[in-house]
């Protein structure tokens, strides 16, 4: 049999495309930790997210968390599906070029009750990554700070503050709340202190800790 180069090249292109498609459709081996009922459903959700250009790693991690915690199939599937929806809403609010860590943080912020318009506004005012501002917003709400107060605080600091400033701000709020201050008051006081610190340029690098 004689094959011309053109024919061989076309054949290789087809094979390569087939291989790429097979790679894309192959189930993540980590999902083998899920039971036989949960695995195909989660795999389908992951594939759908991939097709929609959403990050799939948070979905895989949520499913693995459920498996490790021995959650039921229904619970795992519901959690993964909810997270996929949140990721989609987050991207709608932040734009198509948002990084996966930002989308994951934004999804958590939306789940905590932050309105999408806050996310859009954060994107507008901050040039750097939104991962930490969004995480701080979520953590403040988790600490009992009303969503509106937390959003206003993060918006007021996000434009000029570095990530470390925002993490320090969150710690200050949590410290004051632990000492008995009302969450909204603690937030307002920490915003004022953080603003002074940021404007003075008095930044201090601390060793990594949660």
């Amino acid at each position, binding site marked *: 049999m004689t*094959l011309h180069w053109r024919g*061989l090249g076309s054949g290789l292109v087809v094979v390569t495309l087939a291989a*790429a498609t097979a790679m894309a459709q192959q189930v993540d081996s980590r999902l083998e930790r899920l039971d036989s009922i949960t695995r195909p459903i989660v795999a389908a959700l992951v594939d759908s997210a991939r097709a929609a250009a959403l990050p799939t790693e948070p979905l895989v991690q949520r499913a693995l968390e459920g498996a490790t915690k021995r959650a039921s199939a229904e619970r*795992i599937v519901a959690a993964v599906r909810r997270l996929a929806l949140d990721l989609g809403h987050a991207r709608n609010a932040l734009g198509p070029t948002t990084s996966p860590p930002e989308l994951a943080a934004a999804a958590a912020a939306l789940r905590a009750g932050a309105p999408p318009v806050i996310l859009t506004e954060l994107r507008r005012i901050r040039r750097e990554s939104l991962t930490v501002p969004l995480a701080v917003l979520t953590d403040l709400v988790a*600490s009992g700070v009303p969503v509106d107060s937390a959003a206003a605080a993060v918006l007021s600091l996000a434009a000029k503050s570095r990530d470390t400033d925002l993490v320090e701000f969150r710690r200050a709020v949590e410290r004051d709340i632990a000492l008995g201050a009302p969450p909204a008051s603690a937030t307002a006081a920490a915003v004022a202190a953080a603003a002074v610190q940021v404007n003075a340029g008095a930044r201090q690098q601390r060793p*990594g*800790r*949660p």
Partner: protein
Amino acid sequence: MFEADEELVGRVVRQLRRPVTVDSALDERVMEQIARLPARRGGGTARDVWRWLTRPRTVRLSPLSALAIAAAFVVVALSRPDRFYRPAPASARAFGFVVVAPRAATVSLVGDFNDWDAARTPMQRARRDGSVWTAVIPLTPGRYRYAFLVDGVSWVADPAAPVARDDEFGTPSSVVTVGGS
């Protein structure tokens, strides 16, 4: 003997000093020969290589050989060991985790950073105080949910970290956020 040599040298010198008669048509003949040579441009080797690369030719392959080549491509593409492996980039920072568990036999750190795999990050008992367990792992910028698994059965949140309110499996979890600036 010297006189004979001098005479020889003298004859040679006289011969060399004699004017040479050149044919008047020599220049024309030389130029005609040059004109007959084929014109040669620069970069001949590169042209030859390019012609060799672009010249159509036929290759004889058996169907089995063609299938073997195609299968080799597929195998190479599918067997990449790093398909699902995400190495920690240079921006990763070391983070320390500490929990107090006085009666624990084993404590594991599990979270979004290690596939919630209890075997991946076993915590070490501190030497001075046997009730304190620690682990240090590299984390890239992002938000991670995690928890401590004590003796393989008890889930414990990190008391020094924010609580994860988006926990959907009925057990306590914490959050660590790693910034990039």
